[in-house]
């Protein structure tokens, strides 16, 4: 899950990056409206956490321009302006959720997961494909009801594939889910993680589509 965090307070920005990382998200962080718009124009995110009061403008304007372009990325407004009227303004401007500062990190992560889930048109919190089930909230995976221990990256690769529900996910798409901009990507990282997943889940769990990418094996 790749999340863009737009926040001007460096302490909070650092906390969000580390905290959401612990919850299984890959975070890209920016602190101005300008950087946020640039990031949203060039990359695809599963969700955006947006502060309202930014040094070079209002987060609401970023939100409005994004919606005007027809971008449907789920957006959560995270702000100290926490009056009911502020919430209404934010939601009516196109936000999917609203959270006032200070907030609970776990709640924020849960709200982001819920937004992403609804954005993908799912109602149940877990992902299921064949005998595999994933629970993004606890970051646990199970095969035929038995828990399988996965690393954070392995979990991210598996959930990226399961979200596609048998469609192909390209290597670069999976890489995007795994790494923020600031992180250095090892050239064969995705292959390594897929290799590890096959070792844990069985060779047929993930199919390689030569030249295109990967998809889940078998049927739902």
């Amino acid at each position: 899950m790749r999340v863009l965090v737009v926040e001007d307070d460096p302490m909070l920005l650092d906390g969000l990056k580390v905290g959401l990382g612990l919850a299984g998200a890959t975070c890209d962080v920016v602190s101005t409206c300008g950087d946020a718009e640039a990031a949203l124009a060039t990359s695809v995110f599963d969700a955006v956490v947006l502060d309202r009061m930014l040094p070079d403008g209002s987060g609401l304007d970023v939100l409005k321009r994004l919606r005007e372009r027809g971008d449907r990325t789920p957006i959560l407004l995270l702000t100290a302006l926490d009056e009911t009227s502020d919430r209404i303004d934010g939601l009516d401007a196109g936000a999917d959720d609203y959270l006032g500062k200070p907030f609970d990190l776990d709640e924020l992560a849960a709200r982001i997961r819920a937004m992403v889930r609804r954005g993908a048109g799912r109602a149940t919190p877990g992902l299921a494909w064949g005998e595999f089930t994933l629970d993004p909230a606890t970051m646990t995976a199970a095969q035929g009801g038995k828990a399988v221990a996965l690393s954070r990256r392995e979990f991210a690769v598996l959930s990226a594939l399961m979200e596609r529900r048998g469609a192909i996910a390209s290597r670069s798409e999976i890489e995007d889910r795994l790494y923020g901009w600031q992180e250095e990507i090892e050239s064969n990282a995705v292959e390594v993680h897929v290799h590890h997943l096959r070792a844990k889940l069985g060779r047929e769990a993930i199919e390689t589509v030569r030249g295109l990418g990967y998809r889940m094996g078998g049927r739902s």
Partner: protein
Amino acid sequence: MRSLRVRLFATLIVATGALWFIAAAWIYVGARQEVEHVLDTRLQEAARMVASLVASGDMPARPKAGEPATSIPGLGGYERQLSCQIWSFDDRLVARSSGAPDEKLSDGGTGFSERVVNGEPWRVYAVEDEAKGIRVLVGDRLGLREKLVADLIKGLLWPAALILPLLGFLIWASVGQGLRPLRLIARELGGRDAEDMSPVDAGAMPSEIKPLTTAINGLFDKVERARRHEREVTAFAAHELRTPLAGLKTQAQIAATAKEPGVRDRALGQVLTAVDRASRLVTQLLALARLDAEAPASTPETAPLGSVIEEALELARATGPARVTLAPDVQRMCVQAPRQPLLLLLRNLFENAFEHSPPDGVVTCRVAGCAIEILDEGPGAPEAELPRLTQRFFRGSTKMATGEGAGLGLAIASAAAEQCGATLSFENRQDRTGLIARITFGQSLVAHNAAAA
């Protein structure tokens, strides 16, 4: 008497009563004189009338001795007011009216006289008829006269006694009616909740109440403005505190949940930094609140500028490594200002200068005319931002990059300057990059010898 209504009522009743009594007394005196005059005239006329009757009639002018005196039928009417006696010159009672006493009413002579007969005072008028040798005496009881006047006064006072309570009721009711606008205002204000500061409707009020409603509305306006200012500051402060608190909480949660020691230790370090930042922010907010609350210009003291600057530098030293140069004329000046705000002002300006100084930068403090200037060698500020530097929670674009500070230091300096009777302004240096903070004093910055003189 606390109650306006009771006071008005008492005043009006006492005044009305007193007026009535004075009128009654006046009428009493006047009526008495008038009654005396009228009745005296009547006595006179009656006496002459009888005398002329005797003179023209066939009444025996000299009755035989021993013959009982002829009884003249009483003049009758109102309780036999008049009595008449006819005496011969040789002291025989010739005739008398019925009800007239036997005793002689007057001893002699003509004209008016007064005499006590049978224990009652009489007023008598005597007429002599030389030809017939008789004296006609006509008198009336003084008691009757008194009674007549008393009846008149009673007739005046009885209705007064009856009307006075009615009048009292009317006064009470109309005073109450007159005070109704006050009661309406009181009820309107009493029924309000604490938030309602809308003005009292003065349109329908009588002109006597208008100054009151105008004053109340003026007060409401002032209170409302003060409250709005306070609410704005509080809202802003709450907002500005929330973000650091959110950062603090997030880092604390990471520290609590992270399994890797490296992540945990880093988060704990961030928690400490966040606490320091939050406590600095709270200190600044308190300083600002104190400056807002204090009455302007609390007792100014005259102090040598050099020592004040050194004290401010002591307080500010911790924030920066930059060197400070004091121009020589600083030591020659004295400044007259309340001490605490002045220290707060200088300290915040120095801290700001240190924060923006490069590591080996020099902060200069000098005197220019009636102003103190603090110059740094930092990046300065965009011209457009210069007037906004003292706004609360305003962070300049250079400051935003670092994310440090809450944008309160210069706001505190500005508020403190106001308390010192000085104005604070900023401009960029012309000789190199850097900012000049200028504190302009009026008459309170003087040379040493001038202060001594």
